[in-house]
């Protein structure tokens, strides 16, 4: 069971690499280098701030785009191209396929983020000349970004298992935007009454909580991240992603592959 999941994940990773997804790292490197060099000339005293803000935002955005664009095709492309037929006629369970695809893309994003992290730290080193203790929190911010990718990948996979690529992209992107304001949504739900309150609260808790996973601003200002928050966010992200994957499995298991 785990070996099949591993093979499917490895093959998904290989597909991403051969589709030249990792070339985005070049664009990222160019961006970071340019920013690091320019920022020193423009603003004094906040170079580190700008570099961390820009770097982490770029890591997040690049990854979100990859997660959505690759994620929406994970299942639908295999159905459309009928490559799925020869896979499912083998002793591969449908749920193993979904889980394998998930780990493949999540792994790709993790690897991508790893390389980008090196770029961010290089840029920080360049503008600050030395590392400081507060730079450790940048790692936490990056870790939270990876958790965001985990959630987003599971969502893209869910939509891919029953919807066309275009719709999947719209849904996934919408959830990303709404999820980034999920704290506001919960606050808003608290202010409503009656039936609206039930619906709004339900939606507010169902929407992925990307806002809590975004600590870019505070990390840029060298603020620490509470240990409890790291634990809670990790638990939340893993449980949420698992929930969404269960949904994807349930949908996919019933699907007739015409």
């Amino acid at each position: 069971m785990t070996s099949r999941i591993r093979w499917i994940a490895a093959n998904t990773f290989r597909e991403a690499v051969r589709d030249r997804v990792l070339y985005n790292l070049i664009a990222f490197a160019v961006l970071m280098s340019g920013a690091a060099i320019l920022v020193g000339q423009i603003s004094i005293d906040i170079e580190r701030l700008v570099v961390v803000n820009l770097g982490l935002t770029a890591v997040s955005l690049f990854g979100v785009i990859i997660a959505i664009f690759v994620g929406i095709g994970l299942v639908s492309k295999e159905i459309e191209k009928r490559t799925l037929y020869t896979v499912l006629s083998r002793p591969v369970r449908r749920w193993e396929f979904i889980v394998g695809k998930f780990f493949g893309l999540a792994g790709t994003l993790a690897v991508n983020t790893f390389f980008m992290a090196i770029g961010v730290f290089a840029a920080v080193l360049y503008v600050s000349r030395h590392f400081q203790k507060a730079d450790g929190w940048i790692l936490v911010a990056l870790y939270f970004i990876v958790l965001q990718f985990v959630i987003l990948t599971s969502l893209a996979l869910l939509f891919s298992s029953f919807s066309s690529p275009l719709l999947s992209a719209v849904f996934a992107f919408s959830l990303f935007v709404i999820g980034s304001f999920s704290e506001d949504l919960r606050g808003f739900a608290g202010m409503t009454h009656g039936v609206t309150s039930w619906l709004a609260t339900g939606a507010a808790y169902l929407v992925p909580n990307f806002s809590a996973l975004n600590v870019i601003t505070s990390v840029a200002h060298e603020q620490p991240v509470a240990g409890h928050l790291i634990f809670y966010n990790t638990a939340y992200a893993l449980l949420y992603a698992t929930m969404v994957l269960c949904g994807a499995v349930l949908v996919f298991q019933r699907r007739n592959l015409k």
Partner: protein
Amino acid sequence: MSSRRWNAIFFVLLLIACMAGSVFFLQRVDQLRSGATLGEVLYIPSPKVLKRLSLGYSGLLADIYWTRAVQYFGGKHHEGAEHFDLLAPLLEITTTLDPQLVVAYQYGANFLAPKPPNGAGQPQRAIDLVEFGIRHNPNDWKLYYEEGFIYYTELKDYARAANAFARGSRVPNAHPFLKLLAGRMAEQAGSIETARLMWTAAYQTTQDKAIRANALAHLRALQVDEDVTTLEGLAARYKDQTGQFPSSFSQMESAGFMRGVPLDPLGRPYRLLPDGRVQVVSPDDFPFIERGTPPGYKPPATPKFLPSD
């Protein structure tokens, strides 16, 4: 096919369990982070930069910050806070993103200017905010009203208040009370009639529930102050006439001093004390009153002037 069924049941159960778990941890995260997103407001170096970053969606972002401002103030108010540091930045960001969001300026005038716990105690910042609004909406008479309102209520600068009302009255379609108020500033700034007019205007110029509730509370307070003054005066005259203070209002009624039992604005009877003083039964229900409170009365940390109170 039962293995497929068991499979489906397993995943449904797992889904529900994960959903419950994620909600549980989400609540923990919210608790830890309460106010964290708002706190980041202090890190925004310049609202103008934020506006540019919002790529033309600044209207939506303004609405989000506006909602945050309202929630922030309401939340802090319920905690009985003494400091409302983030209110000014939140309103400033809101209005930079959407300079035509008039209610934000009104909110600032009503809740940024007054001293804590009724507001943030930053009247000058409120003035700056409203003047920014006037610059961007020169034909909106409401903003001139708000400027005069702040000068009148918090800064007690009646000359400037008159100036603001006068400017506003010249705007086409201005509400007539602007001219009225401009006139009253000169001679009758301290009168209760002017105050009543001011707060009635405050109630009428907006649809925002919080501002209206606040204005009503002030109007009730004015009513109480006036009633207490009148009733104590009547009690004093009674004493002059009969040599003693009245023991009850019905006594005063039989003596022809009044008709019926006097009720406070919330419909409860006033209390007549043996020494001729008049008090309200529940002073906590009347924030802002200056008369009619028992000696040594301390107003609650959370004065009741918002609709949620």
